[in-house]
């Protein structure tokens, strides 16, 4: 069981990776902790100072389209984002989110407004998303199989490290 509550930052359709973090900033560094200050500077100036671990990204169709470079995911993670709700994700952004331990939840986000407090709860069967302002509850299928394991440990790097140490342990035995 997982429970989270956050304040919605609402974005539109086709938010591309360059909008999330501009390519001109990536020329100097791809360290997400340094790039956090530039998040969405071209489409939402000032957002970088508002966004924190109590924020939740709410987007429309095709979130994260464009480049497959992972820094566009890692910069949101560095800012504290744990969950992204979107009508749909670009496939490389979806993969990169899972691999970096951010939950990409696909659902109809059209009724959620900027600043709404949104609760997300998840068990083995389903994910429930509740908008406190409208009291609207959306049910989405739970993550399953390996993706669930990868997300629950925070990404594919810790996932593989854990598996490797288990393998070594069993070899020792």
């Amino acid at each position, binding site marked *: 069981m997982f429970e989270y509550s956050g304040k919605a930052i609402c974005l539109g359709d086709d938010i591309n990776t360059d909008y999330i973090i501009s390519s001109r900033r990536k020329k100097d560094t791809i360290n997400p902790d340094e790039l956090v200050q530039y998040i969405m500077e071209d489409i939402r100036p000032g957002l970088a100072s508002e966004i924190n671990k109590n924020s939740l990204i709410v987007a429309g169709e095709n979130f994260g*389209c464009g480049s497959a470079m992972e820094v566009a995911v890692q910069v949101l993670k560095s800012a504290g984002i744990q969950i992204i709700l979107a009508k749909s994700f670009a496939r490389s952004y979806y993969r990169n989110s899972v691999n970096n331990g951010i939950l990409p939840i696909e659902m109809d986000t059209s009724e959620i407004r900027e600043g709404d407090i949104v609760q997300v709860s998840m068990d083995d069967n389903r994910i429930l998303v509740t908008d406190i302002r409208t009291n609207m509850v959306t049910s989405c299928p739970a993550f399953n199989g390996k993706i669930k394991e990868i997300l629950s440990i925070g990404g*594919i*790097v810790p996932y593989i490290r854990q598996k490797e140490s288990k393998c070594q342990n069993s070899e020792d035995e």
Partner: protein
Amino acid sequence: MSMTMSQKILAAHANLDEVRPGQLIMADLDLVLGNDITAPVAIREFAKFGMDKVFDKTKVVLVPDHFTPNKDIKAAEQCKCMREFAYDHEIENYFEIGQMGIEHALLPEQGLVGAGDLIIGADSHTCTYGALGAFSTGVGSTDMAAAMATGKAWFKVPSAMRFNLTGKLGRWVSGKDLILHIIGMVGVDGALYKSMEFTGPGVATLTIDDRFTICNMAIEAGAKNGIFPVDAVAKEYLAAHCKRVPVVYAADADAVYEEHFEIDLGSIRPTVSFPHLPDNTRTIDEVGEVKIDQVVIGSCTNGRISDLRVAASILKGRKVARHVRTIILPATQTIYLQAMEEGLLRIFVESGAVVSTPTCGPCLGGHMGILAKDERAVATTNRNFVGRMGHVQSEVYLASPAVAAASALTGYISNPEKLEEK
């Protein structure tokens, strides 16, 4: 059982009898690819696993093709990181400058791609290998790191769109025009997460190079992969390049497709994508007067020998317009040599074009042909996003090698059909 061709390949690599769209699986990989931009990030992630070996040193491929030959110190450092990793881990398929070619032209040519393979690459155009009946798709650097460590990757099983092809392409019409037409029809997110499966009697009329071009741009419609059946044309190419026996998967007769399109190849016109998205297409008849400054013929989309032959057939005995810089990039050293032996390089140079060593360079605004403010290029590449080839106020028009070559001669986007036969 009712599975598409893509689903069958995924099921086989996950040791499952059946998979359904949306199912999450862990699958065994036949090949893992990285380049000089994505591999260094993957190598840093790989280091975090604390493993001293990659899962299989014959199944990791490293190709320094983007900012090479090293365009600046940063590019040189990236390549050095990859080279050292390749030597440390005894990666057999590391291709140094001199053997290197543009990755998606190089891997099939080197016989590294087999029919029925499951391949991931940390490059979005990895979907190219569907031309040979492989399931291949682009991923991020962390995926590549995990794959180098374990030989596995997770997949969400895609649903599919079916494109049933009939008829035959016209004289100056190519696979590039077909895929631009399709992207214009379905949109840049029209195939999001899905497979694009090409079937029908028209498939047999498409050359293998046409098929590489078509699968290469599946990602520009948002697709996970593009794939062709393994027919006589594919088998002939595989027999000449790949030592392994092809593993042929075919879609079940009752496979479910979310969407179905009928396309008469004879109806496809030379097609151009206007700025700033690949789906902003017009036929050559609707282009109007568009003056250009540069032509680029090359890239993982259109830098193969048949592309160069078409361009040469148009440029032969003619001169490019005085105000146009024409840059031609054979995609691999083998293609370069072949073009030399066939006399194509002489034709290009005599027409006023330059011929480059293999590199992705100009396609992503890296080097070897950057655009200034307000300049326009016709390119046989795959993306025309804002600032893709240089200045944010420059423009890229995507087209076939025939349209690009014809445009180089006139200085305006031009129809190859209208050039006088020579």
